[in-house]
């Protein structure tokens, strides 16, 4: 009895993403309709926490990384992680029946892993093999699953409930599971995080200029996901504020049926 409780607890601790995802799903059940951020009151404090961590730890690390590391090293590290992103893009494209995208991603991985020395050099880019940015959240969106409530995960950042599937798949199937010893696994995760943050450094100024950074990140994230699920050609742009009234825009006619409640009611391609 005691043992199984401990096991469960360990499971939750070892799989923080799953644990948080489960929490999010539970909370999602109690969602009021017509509101794409029903958990705002929980999300906002988490965002403040994330901002604090970023300011003290992640941003300085990323800055140090870009200052100290020679740019070829930075580039190679980034390419290495992108190669793994491409690897996951293959099944994600296949699951949506996108044969060309899957073939391109496969081509990229094969070329970059061999000629590109384990992904360190992006040879596929020189060969102009297009990169497709498919992921498992888009797979579910493609098959009609709405995005569900927007979540701000501690340390991990913005995600919709549906799109939690992507980090979960990558976390469980990704290379981290196979890396031994544990120290190497932490190093891998750490460098991955620093590289990802370094990519965003140029956007910091823009973010600092915003009046409400939480709202800016949320609205940007949700619109971008909507755009990606529809492969850059969404049927309509995501209405970001439910209370939209502009007589001139509506021309007296009702806005296309009851305005779709943001990502909660996505129509499918």
């Amino acid at each position, binding site marked *: 009895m005691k043992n199984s409780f401990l096991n469960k607890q360990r499971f939750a601790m070892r799989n923080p993403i799953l644990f948080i995802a489960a929490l999010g799903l539970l909370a999602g059940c109690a969602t009021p309709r017509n509101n794409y951020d029903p958990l705002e009151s929980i999300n906002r404090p988490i965002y403040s926490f994330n901002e604090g961590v970023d300011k003290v730890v992640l941003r300085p690390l990323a800055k140090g990384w870009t200052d100290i590391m020679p740019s070829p090293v930075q580039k190679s590290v980034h390419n290495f992680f992108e190669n793994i992103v491409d690897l996951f893009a293959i099944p994600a494209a296949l699951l949506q029946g996108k044969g060309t995208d899957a073939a391109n991603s496969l081509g990229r991985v094969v070329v970059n892993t061999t000629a590109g020395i384990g992904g360190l050099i992006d040879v596929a880019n020189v060969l102009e093999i297009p990169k497709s940015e498919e992921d498992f959240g888009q797979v579910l969106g493609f098959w009609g699953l709405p995005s569900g409530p927007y979540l701000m995960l501690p340390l991990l950042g913005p995600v919709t409930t549906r799109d939690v599937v992507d980090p979960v798949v990558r976390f469980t199937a990704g290379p981290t599971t196979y890396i031994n010893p544990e120290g190497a696994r932490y190093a891998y995760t750490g460098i991955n995080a620093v590289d990802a943050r370094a990519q965003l450094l140029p956007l910091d100024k823009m973010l600092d200029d915003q*009046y*409400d950074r939480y709202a800016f990140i949320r609205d940007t994230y949700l*619109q*971008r996901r909507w755009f990606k699920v529809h492969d850059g050609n969404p049927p309509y742009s*995501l209405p970001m*504020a439910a*209370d939209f009234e502009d007589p001139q*825009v509506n021309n007296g006619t009702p806005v*296309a049926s009851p305005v779709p409640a943001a990502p909660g009611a996505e129509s499918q391609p």
Partner: protein
Amino acid sequence: MKKMKWLLVLAVALMSGSVLAANETPEQIVRTVSRDVLDIIKKNDKDTARVRDLVDAKVAPLADYNRMTKLAVGRYWLSATAEQQQALVREFRQMLVRTYLSALTIYKNAQVDVKGSRTGNSADEVNVRSEVILAGQKPIPLDFSFEKTDAGWKVYDISVEGISFINNHRNQFSTIIQKEGVDGLIKQLSDRNSSARASVVANTK
């Protein structure tokens, strides 16, 4: 008499010019204007203030800043007085030009490829899809929303990678208006615009 003739020729030339512009499709507008704007940036590499003025002059006749502001302010627009509305449009326009110029200076060696267009919410609206191409980088989707007005096609929204300029401000603006009223929003916008101007002046000195 000779002078009159000359004036007539000039008038006809000007008229045909504006007629031509009015007949241009949104796709053609995106093509020509993006090419012209990138040319301006390339030729005036060092002079930020000059680039800003030239680009503003080029883009202004094509942008419906009034409607952009209206859409960004959303439901609070109607509660603003005429003076407040004017001030909002003025400050929003400055912010838009500033934001896109800082993006453009990064992309000065870019090329804009028009990918196609489709009808928007009504027959009078057209969305033009394009891509910003930079050597060795993934193309960046850039979409323009056009509406047909009495003065020809005008842009009322721009999206980068699906992120709409208008939508991205609406929630933030309503937060400010709820807390500090319409005047609070005008003040916030103009404060930021003038501090940005100050830093541009400092940089060029």
